[in-house]
């Protein structure tokens, strides 16, 4: 079992490709975390379900949300807490 990170994007979001790259980088090498990328214009139901307002929104397993683009160092620190928790 792995913890899921949900990443909401949209075609108009200019920071999203960078952020998605960073996320894939961090999560790609771990078994403990998995990433689901959702484009709100293609999957509005999910956007509804998670009450998405701003893009990008990252939903972490502890229900914390990151709204707006952040840098890699910040994301790694966030992910580390889950990796420690899982091990």
């Amino acid at each position, binding site marked *: 079992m792995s913890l899921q990170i949900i990443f*909401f994007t*949209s*075609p*108009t*979001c200019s*920071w999203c490709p960078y952020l998605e790259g960073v996320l894939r980088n961090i999560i790609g090498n771990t078994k403990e975390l998995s990433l689901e990328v959702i484009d*709100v*214009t293609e999957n*509005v139901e999910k*956007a*509804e379900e*998670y*009450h*998405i*307002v*701003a*893009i*990008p*929104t990252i939903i972490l397993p502890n*229900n*914390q*949300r*990151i*709204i*707006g*683009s*952040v840098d890699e160092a910040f994301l790694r620190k966030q992910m580390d807490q889950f990796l420690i928790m899982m091990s």
Partner: protein
Amino acid sequence: MIISTGIEELDNMIDGGLRTGSCYAIKGSAGSGKTVLSLFMALGALKKDIPVLFISTEVDPEKLIMYGDSFDMNLKSYIDKGLLSFEKMSLKPKSTSLVQTDKFDLSGIIARTQSKMKSLNAKLVIFDSISAFFAEFVYEKTARSSFMDFIREITDKKAVLVLTSESQVNEEYSTLEEYLVDGVIKIRTELKNNQMIKRISVPKLRSAKPIKFENRFIIDRDGVSILRSEQPPLSIIDAEKIGVEKLDKMLGGGIPAGSVVLIETDGETNYFPLFLQIMCCNLERGTGVIIHSNVHMYSARIVEEFKRVECDITPHLNEGNVVFIDKYNRSVTAVEAREMSQLMTTDDMISVTVELMQAFQKSEQKVILFGDLTDDTNILTEPNFLRYFALQSFNIKEQSAIAYSFINFNAISREMLARLRNTADIIIRFSRSDYTTYIECLKSSLGATFLPKVVKFRDKMPLIEILD
């Protein structure tokens, strides 16, 4: 397509109704009625089978349905019919925590709104309120500028977008949204005679000339209503009549009890006709009058004037329907009056006031006409006169009476006029230009002011006629 707001008077104010492809903002302070008004707008469209999407940022849908029920809207029935949808949109859903940066846009709510609009086929989208929405953002400026995309995308869809926005008390500049929207409907509240009065205006309208003047806006159990300044509905007020039919109508049915009415005239315009007309009307209605006489307006003169216009008031005089409080019961010259009045002390002024109170107590008469106050203002010192006027006004309100005070605005200082106007509830002004007399209402406790209208004086009752 034009969508009616369901409130006829509001439709008139915004050039017929809400235009598709346009965005409107309802602005007002907290509790002014933005949510209530937007719910009524939704209802107006729903009643015509126009689908509505209502986006709420602070209040949960169940609460809004209940809010609607308090006005018998039965919004649930429209939801069941698939005509209405409430969507809660807020940045921070319950039991989540947020980290925010300034690198984001609002494509999330744009996508959600567009999808809902499509499934409902919504032609009216209401967003209540943008202020509560923006307040959730740490980087409010980014949110506001990104919200421009929301406005552009949604109004592009051949639908109407209505935003509500909380105005701050000391707002001196227009907010960004105000530039972008096609119309601004403004609700203002003010405290008057211990009552909250709401006023509505349209300071901005792209499709037509904006209605800058304010109309009365009323929220009660039966819903919202707007009293148009030019011609408010007659049924609203059970008021005392002035006796000039058209004037009563334009003032919203008459004068509410407890009002101080200031009638301003220039030196040339004769206010006698209006004085006699008010007196005559009240006598005929059996209300009776108290005349507070003055240099130009003493008992003998009034009786004489009535004779001149062939109106017999002797029966009323015999029955005691008219109470004269005469300061000088004969014609005095201005010099004589000045001499007499200079002897008048503050004590005398109080005794005149006491006399009036006694007259109130003795009789049913609750209408008082103050003869020309101009001389008093010139004779008494300014502070004394103002104290006298304030005292009388207080008295009038206490007794739920109505006072008509006549004054020549050219003969008193600007400052004095401003003070009197402040105290008065209703201001009617006569003025002359090119041999034509005009009447206008500058102030009204009911919001029923009107612009100058031509007046014709006649020899017989009715002595005054207001032309269109």
